[in-house]
């Protein structure tokens, strides 16, 4: 890599089923994502070499880029009407200064969740304290946490050992006790791990990577117990004191071991690792990075969600004031391992219950038929809804998957437990005694959706509607989606040290990745049918003048693009809050999006009727897509 700003970047994400490639190039003074290619992932038999899928995806990129550079949009480019070449002799090529065609790229990077991603078990001493911190470190690094074991998790020691043996994780993280404590319990946990004689998921006969990030006074004992039978790494305590979490060293070590041990065992990754200009990162870890970066740069509270076929990841960065009054931005990630839209779709039915899914379906349907349809989606996960009826069912399921994942996230994203002085010691040891989430919906600025059902909904208004129904934003919130799921690639790009990479990640995120859907105004309070909830005064860019009270139980949409700022006066009725307190008026300049402005006066908490006849009537009344006219293919055409 030279010191010149990079011009051409290729980034891939090797998913479980599909490998996605994007091309980012400097166009004039700015970086843009130009084309996207994809191909089936080739980790499994008969190929068993991830690089074949990568090359196929990049070759599709070549074809599409060549087509792009034939269009008028590329007339000013030096590549106009020239073929683009990125692959030669089954290798991704780099630009050669002597090559006048400028074939190849400057930077190639990749993320990966193929082969089931990174699967970890974590151990701590107290479930709600060090075990929770360890879980946060593993999740933040992009792992799927298969189980969390702690002294007080209610399981007997032999049950814990059975569990370690049964799960066969890729990696184990052990934490526990602060550095001031006399080592005891954490050593007991290490002894349990040793007794289980755990084996690695990939590669029979390989030593299992174990990271110890607990009480540093126990380091020598931990070495004695685990060094012989496992690939042990010691890092600084992730909870050195009750008041402080230090997750970074453990998370970094997880990334290193993911590359050194886990990826080395996966087919073709030894080759792929040599091709990339930055370490391969687990996909969710990279998404978390970009969301956190945006939140920090824009000083906003952000929630991101990625709803996939098997799992749903939720990310949040919220400002949190410590006891000294200093404001920090705290990042959290959760993964709901069995809430998804294809492989796990039946599990959404199971966890949400049929009634909760049916409440979002705008027509009546036989229960057995619905169950069979959902079952058939699970066993044929790549199919897509052809009929409107099928689409409505999928979007109903998505609302519940998102709702449940977000509930899990909010209950996990809490302040550090065990430091509240006013609590008794018994409460401090009770994992559920403190559940005040730092994800405060009234303070949420930006909600970003990602994943097929949100990014590829036929109409962007449907994506906005799903986000509002499942996350129930409060007050004033900007809604957005990731246009084509490129957040993972941008996440890892933002970490590359070469000149221009961080800038490229941020510019592409803002211009091509993020599609602003709408600004939502959702007053909080208990609604009564026919009673006014909020008065909104604004002159919208299309000439619509808002200046009226809006009654309860409405979901309204108005056109309002993102590029024009509009002055709003929002006056909640007595008993309702839009951010400044009950009944207090808010005056603010707001930007909309491709869907526009969404006003939700259904109240918070929002309770939808389960009575079929009323339900169908209400759902049809709230259908904000009825009068939505998309302006370009990006808005859903």
């Amino acid at each position, binding site marked *: 890599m030279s010191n010149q700003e990079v011009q051409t970047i290729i980034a891939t994400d090797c998913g*479980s*089923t599909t490998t996605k490639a994007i091309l980012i190039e400097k166009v004039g003074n700015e970086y843009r994502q130009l084309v996207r290619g994809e191909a089936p*992932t080739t*980790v*499994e038999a008969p190929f068993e070499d991830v690089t074949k899928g990568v090359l196929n995806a990049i070759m*599709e990129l070549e074809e599409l880029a060549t087509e792009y550079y034939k269009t008028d949009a590329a007339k000013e480019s030096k590549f106009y009407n020239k073929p683009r070449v990125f692959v030669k002799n089954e290798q991704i090529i780099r630009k050669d200064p002597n090559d006048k065609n400028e074939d190849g790229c400057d930077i190639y990077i990749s993320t990966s969740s193929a*082969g*089931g991603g990174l699967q970890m078990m974590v151990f701590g001493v107290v479930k709600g304290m060090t075990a929770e911190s360890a879980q946060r470190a593993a999740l933040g690094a992009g792992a799927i946490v298969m189980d969390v074991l702690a002294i007080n998790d209610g399981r007997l*020691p*032999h049950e814990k*050992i*059975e569990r370690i*043996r049964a799960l066969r994780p890729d990696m184990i993280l052990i934490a526990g006790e602060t550095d001031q404590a006399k*080592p*005891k319990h954490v*050593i*007991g946990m290490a*002894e*349990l791990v040793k*007794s*289980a*004689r755990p*084996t690695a998921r990939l590669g*029979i*006969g390989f030593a299992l990577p174990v990271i110890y990030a607990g009480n540093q006074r126990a380091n020598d004992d931990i070495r004695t117990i685990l060094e012989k039978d496992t690939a042990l790494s010691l890092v600084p305590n992730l909870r050195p004191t009750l008041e402080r979490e230090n997750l970074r060293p453990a998370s970094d070590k997880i990334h290193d071991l993911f590359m050194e041990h886990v990826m080395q065992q996966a087919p073709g990754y030894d080759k792929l690792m040599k091709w990339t200009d930055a370490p391969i990162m687990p996909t969710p870890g990279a998404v978390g990075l970009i969301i956190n970066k945006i939140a920090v740069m824009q000083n906003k509270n952000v929630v991101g969600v990625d709803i996939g076929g*098997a799992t749903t990841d939720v990310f949040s960065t919220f400002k949190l004031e410590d006891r000294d009054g200093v404001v920090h931005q705290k990042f959290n990630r959760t993964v709901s391992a*069995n809430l998804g839209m294809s*492989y*796990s779709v*039946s*599990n959404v*039915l*199971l*966890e949400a219950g049929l009634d909760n899914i049916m409440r979002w379906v705008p027509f009546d349907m036989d229960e*057995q*038929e619905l*169950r*069979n*349809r*959902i*079952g*058939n989606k*699970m*066993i*044929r996960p*790549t*199919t*897509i*809804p*052809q*009929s*409107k*009826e*099928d*689409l409505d069912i999928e979007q109903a399921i998505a609302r519940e998957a998102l709702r449940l994942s977000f509930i899990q996230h909010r209950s996990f994203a809490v302040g550090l437990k065990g430091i509240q002085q006013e609590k008794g010691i018994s409460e401090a040891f009770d994992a559920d005694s403190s559940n005040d989430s730092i994800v405060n919906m009234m303070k949420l600025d930006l909600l970003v959706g990602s994943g097929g059902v949100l990014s*590829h909904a*036929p*109409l962007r208004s449907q994506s906005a509607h799903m986000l509002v129904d499942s996350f129930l934003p409060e007050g004033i919130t900007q809604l957005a989606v990731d246009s084509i799921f490129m957040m993972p690639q941008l996440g890892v790009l933002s970490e590359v040290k070469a000149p221009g990479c961080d800038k490229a990640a941020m510019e592409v995120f803002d211009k091509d990745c993020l599609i602003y859907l709408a600004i939502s105004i959702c007053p909080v309070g208990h609604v009564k049918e026919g009673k006014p909830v909020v008065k909104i005064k604004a002159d919208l860019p299309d000439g619509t003048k808002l200046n009226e009270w809006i009654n309860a139980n409405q979901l309204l949409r108005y056109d309002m693009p993102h590029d024009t700022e509009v002055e709003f006066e929002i006056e909640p009725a007595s008993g309702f809050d839009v951010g400044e307190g009950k009944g207090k008026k808010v005056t603010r300049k707001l930007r909309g999006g491709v869907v526009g402005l969404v006003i939700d006066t259904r109240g918070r908490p929002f309770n939808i009727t389960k009575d079929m006849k009323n339900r169908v009537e209400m759902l049809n009344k709230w259908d904000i897509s009825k009068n939505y006219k998309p302006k370009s*293919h990006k808005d*859903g055409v």
Partner: protein
Amino acid sequence: MAHAYTPGLKVAAKIVIEKTRKLPLLGQVLVKKGDKIPSNTIVAKTELPGKVYPINVAGQLGLGKANELIECMLKKEGDPVKAGEIVAMSKGFFGFFKSEYKAPIDGTITQISQITGQVIFNAAAIPVEIDAYVDGDVKDEIPSEGVIMRTEGVHIQGIIGLGGESYGNIMIVAKSPDQIVDISMINDTMKEKVIVCGSKITTEALTKAKNVGVAGVITGGFDYQDIKDILGHDLGVAITGHEDIGYTLILTEGFGTIPMADRTYKLLKKYEGFKASINGATQIRAGVMRPEIIITHNEPQEEKSLKNYAESGLEKGDQIRIIRSPYFGKLGKVISLPVELHKVESGTWVRVMTVDLDGKEVLIPRANVEVIEK
């Protein structure tokens, strides 16, 4: 992208089938390369570590410090113990008030911790064996891990199954691929057989089949909500094979009442009375695994060689099956594969194909069909 297609489930009359038979841990391989063996031959064995009982013996003896434990132990690490045998005794007070600790199990002491006062007792190892699963030859040995078995015959993949590996002779119960098998059609002659149903088997019939002692049930469809009656709980994700239900259930088409594909039914009927090795294990995730039916036979191949769809892709005239509503389960023939995206009723722009469906031309998303592979 022109080659984009969803591979169908394999329904082959005669192919070479290789099955890897591996131990969960390193062990001993009991057969040699080239051996001709029946399906029930044990090909490899090993021992899984026995149950582990970590006991805080220092606490049980009432010792003040964990490091005093070593002096109280009557056994050392690696010693075998019998349940009830005294393994540790405290020194007491001037030789009086001694307390003792007895081994909770027959096994071995694997660890005595002077830091935590914990003693770890290991129960005897659990023997594990794996069999050949199919009648055939040992193609290769995998040292200390297992073998690769090779056979020739019918290979049919189902869409989802319950229960693990099983064997039995094929017995046709449904008179046609669209017949629903009910309780009146199940009888004692089906004991240890792999029975073949049509578009569905009712839960009552399935319960009776289990009581009769069938080895396996192959059916076109089955109601999703009836799975709860079999398992005692719903099926959330399609990762199966470990269910202890007493037989193996394989669905060839999907959930609901769906006739078994004609070709599948005819193949099973042709080999009625032959031994089938079946496995319900399904994993619809990365590393997709479908349930399977293998029937070893030496009959000559009647068909021309298989078309390689992975290379040629779908073409005009190919037979397909629609795998999503509104035409779920219907068979058709590809008329054309337009390159450009089309808008379907849901409003989604997708790649489509036009299909001849009983003389009617319909537009179907390419993702919603599977090729009928022969």
